[in-house]
């Protein structure tokens, strides 16, 4: 019993030391700068990475950043894609972990619906303007010259 306790304490120390060292100069995560061997999977991963925000940078995706956190996230994404996970499931997992902020692709929700209502409204408005201006021939309105 006592031996076991000593072992556990020793292991904890080793892990702690390793942890401290790791924070100082951690080698980049395995797939941070390495592509997946299957080009189809890599393309999927790339497409997903381009739509995830690097949380430490200003307006860059994790696919365009040298920040170590972006590298870790790239590696994470690639490994999950290689394990056969669905890209949208990975996005959902990351959003649960880091908040909606991490995804550049806004989902329709309570807070983002205006973003999606806008194009629809604009389409309707543009259609209306064009229809009003063009719908009736000039002959029908000639002479009035006022709208």
């Amino acid at each position, binding site marked *: 019993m006592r031996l076991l306790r000593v072992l556990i304490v020793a292991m904890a120390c080793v892990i702690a030391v390793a942890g401290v060292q790791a924070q100082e100069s951690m*080698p*980049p995560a395995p797939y941070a*700068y*390495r*592509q997946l061997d299957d080009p189809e999977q890599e393309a999927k991963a*790339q497409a997903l990475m*381009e*739509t995830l*925000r690097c949380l430490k940078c*200003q*307006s*860059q*995706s994790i*696919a*365009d*950043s*040298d920040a170590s956190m972006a590298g870790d996230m790239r590696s994470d994404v690639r490994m999950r894609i290689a394990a056969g996970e669905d890209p949208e499931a990975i996005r959902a997992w990351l959003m649960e972990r880091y*908040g*909606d*902020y*991490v*995804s*550049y*692709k*806004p989902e329709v929700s309570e*807070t*983002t619906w*205006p*973003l999606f209502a*806008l*194009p629809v409204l*604009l*389409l309707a*408005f*543009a259609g209306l*303007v*064009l229809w009003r*201006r*063009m719908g009736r*021939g*000039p002959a029908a*309105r*000639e002479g009035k*010259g*006022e*709208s």
Partner: protein
Amino acid sequence: MAAELGLAAMWLAAALAALQLVAGAMAMNARADGTSELAPLVRPAAVLQGLLAAFAFLSLIYLFAVTDLSVKLVALNSHSAKPLIFKVAGAWGNHEGSMLLWVTVMSTAGALIALVERRLPEKTMQATLAAQGFVALGFYAFLLFSSNPFERLPTPALEGNGLNPLLQDIGLAFHPPTLYFGYVGLSVAFSFAVGALLTRQVTPDFARAMRPWILGAWIFLTVGITAGSYWAYYELGWGGWWFWDPVENASLMPWLAATALLHSASVLAARDALRTWTIMLGVVAFSMSMVGTFLVRSGILTSVHAFAVDPERGTFILALLAIYIGGALAVFAFRAGTVAEGERFSITSREGALVVNNVMLSAILAIVLVGTLYPLLTEAFDVRVSVGPPYFNPVSAIFFFPMVAVLLVGPLLRWRRDSLARIRPSLVIVGLLLLVGIMVALLLSPIGILPGLGLVFAPALAVASVLPLRGRSLRRLPLATWGMVVAHLGIAVALFGMASESAFSEERLVAVQVGQTAEVGPWKVRLDGIQPVAGPNWTALQGRMFASYQGGREIEIDPQSRSFWVPPQQTTESALVTRWNGQLYAVVGNEAGDGKWQLRLWWKPFVTFIWYGGLLIALGGLLALVGRVIADLKRRHAKGRVAQRRKEAKA
């Protein structure tokens, strides 16, 4: 002494702007028969104001050139041991100096219109100059009360703080002024619009007077955006060329508005139609310039909360925004009803096509504006969302591609009323090209929908843009028409570059040992060695590589990974090999263990077409501008001669 002279010049210029506003307003309100006594003062005031502002700006450049460390701005942003060119560029590489540059450009433009523009009724000119004075006054107040560039230190500093190393780049030294020229050129269009609206003179002459200023501003914006995009591409080290970053959007929005304004002003100048709409766009375009300045200058982009902590400057600009945009919209609301809409036209006419262009551009503008501001708005309520390429790309494409489809035929149509039957041969050519494009795109699949559409439309647009030359004498064609053809061709070229980059780019991330070779697309890249190199304020690891295209001659490339000391910062210097059909993009990264080095390689087919296209668009604008100005000068000369002859005949 120079600092005090500069400051005094700024105060005097502000006073003259106030005089310009008051005298202009009084002259405008004088009854139709009588003129105000102050009216003759308006033009000289505008000219003198421009000279004084230019003098203030030159004083600031002088202070930076001699590194006068008793001036706070110089001590904060310069250093005695900088090359002279960066000392001078440092004058506008900071907040205060760039705002002074903004005001200087605006007053100089005001002085120019006061000197040369005589086509419009004098009252309209006075209202225009009053509006210009009103806008300038706000920015003088901003400079004098919250961003004084000439402030002295109580005790002179021993040495300056230096300039951010990233900004010590010749391209970047001239990037902000380019965009500012564009932003501020739109202020002239704004003043013309307000002046015309106040005096109810929304005429083709007004459009013609305003057009060179829109064109000039638009050329500068186009060049600025193109250069900024290329800078981001080679400097950031990941091969991206547009990020829908708020700072980029801040320059794109005025460009979109100016593009729409340019086209609607053409309709007004040629056909006396779209009057109120052109006025509205003139107001919107300058509003977008101010929104852009606000976004970049207030610090709101780094964080809404950082802005809330030190809100003085941001609030000042926001107040100016509210006064000018709100004021202009109020004038618009009161007066627009009294401006007749103008001539009518049928849907199949040049005007009809240009209306589609305007509606679509305005829709894209609205999307970029909301997509940029929305995250700032929600952040104020502590909800953080990101709006990025997955939103902007498809949503703006909904409006972009219909616009391009209309652009295929629009320039071929006649004004007022036309029929598609008349231009059937051209329609057949364009239609066939589209069909071939669709088949090729399907064969090449899988490529995404947006790049696919781009690849289909680009060749058809390239041909359609030169079709207006068919059956016309090329030697007698007006320069402005050449400008239109070249600019539309530029859109096709840029679109092709964007689509091709997105559809066909190949990426290779590898760790290789010295002597090993990596392949990307048709390229073989051999790592020959890694050497340390040192610059004035950085050290770097430089990769010596040899690249060969399809087994051809080897070309040496030397990408670097640089570490700066003050402030500690790592940058990548990518190495590019440009061929006519694309670029090889190479970056050297960190050591990967086992004597291996990380390389990032891209083969980007036809990526350079994006920026060639941008430059063609700007060239088209330049041709149109030169053509219009020459035509105006000729007309003025002819008028002068007629008047002269009449005088002689009388005598």
